[in-house]
């Protein structure tokens, strides 16, 4: 096993930089509130894995979306559990981001040089909310339709460009199949990519700047 890994490492050079990362010292006196960020990542991983599983059976079309949710829920083996995990992980993810933000504020860990990391964290929160909003429509039922109707109508209130912006978000004047495919694309492609990039920035800065000491 060792020799096999040596051959791999001779090409990929993962050992040395990761050794430095893994063996870095951690400040004394950290408590379990410092795990909230890691727990948010855990729930994001659950979201990504269950989301990939759901995407195998989900059909993002006006006629098929609702039916495919029923199939996932009632016919696919453990489909109801995967769907439930995805839904609850979204709530837990947002709770953990809020708790992590409170912890960072209380310990004043946003002070220089970490102010950019605070901003990146805020953007992560925004992307998480946007993911939750776009994901809500995908069930394509009464509740999803009307919640999205209200949510997207908020954009219309912007003076001068509101109507155009709302049309751009919905893909049509009303919520329709075009809105569904648009939201599906944003939910499974654009936002996870944004989230991945933001998380990479967040963890990169934590790695480089270290964990802030307690007050």
């Amino acid at each position, binding site marked *: 096993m060792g020799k096999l890994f040596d051959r791999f490492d001779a090409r990929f050079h993962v050992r040395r930089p990761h050794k430095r990362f*893994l*063996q*870095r*010292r*951690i400040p*004394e006196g*950290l*408590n*379990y509130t*410092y*795990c909230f960020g*890691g*727990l948010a990542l*855990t*729930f994001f991983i*659950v979201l990504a894995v269950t989301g990939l599983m759901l995407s195998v059976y989900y059909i993002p079309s006006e006629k098929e979306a*609702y039916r495919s949710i*029923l199939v996932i829920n*009632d016919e696919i083996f453990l489909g*109801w*559990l995967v*769907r*439930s*995990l995805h839904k*609850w*992980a*979204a*709530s*837990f993810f*947002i709770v953990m981001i809020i708790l992590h*933000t*409170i912890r960072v*504020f209380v310990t*004043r860990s*946003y*002070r*220089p040089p*970490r*102010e950019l990391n*605070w*901003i990146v964290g*805020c953007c992560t929160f925004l992307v998480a909310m946007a993911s*939750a*909003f776009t994901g*809500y429509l995908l*069930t394509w*039922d*009464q*509740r999803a*339709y*009307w*919640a999205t*109707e*209200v*949510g997207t*109508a*908020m*954009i219309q*209130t912007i*003076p001068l460009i509101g109507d155009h912006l709302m049309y751009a978000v919905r893909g049509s004047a009303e919520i329709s199949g075009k809105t569904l495919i648009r939201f599906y694309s944003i939910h499974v492609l654009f936002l996870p990519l944004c989230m991945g990039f933001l998380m990479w920035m967040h963890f990169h800065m934590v790695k480089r700047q270290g964990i802030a000491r307690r007050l």
Partner: protein
Amino acid sequence: MADLQTDGQPKRAKQFYPDYLAEILFAALVAFQLLLIVAMLWPPSTGRAIDLTRQFLPRAEWYFFWLFEVLLYFPGKSAFIGAVVFPLVYFMLLMFIPFIDQGRNGRFKAKIVAWSLLFLFVFFTILRVLRDTWPNLFS
């Protein structure tokens, strides 16, 4: 976190691996178990198929309750304030906390801003829950 050093042994500085990583993985495992239990006990129901002829009261997920509640206070032409200005100012204030906490009384100002933002979120969320649970309370 728990100090695992035995008495009489020289104290070793904690490293990310294995000390911190083991603790965070333990926390992650416990959190996942909790998620699994909640997901099994309360699976989401499948809603009704879309029927535009029927009236329906829009209901968002709990993390949007606060925004739905704020919208109620800005009807008609003032909706722009509740729908765009309020969330925008809210988010900008949150983002600029590191810059508010600067100079004399910086921490005090940041505390006022941060706890006010949290209070608004919790307050409007609770109001929304009350409104949905007991609609007569607000009529």
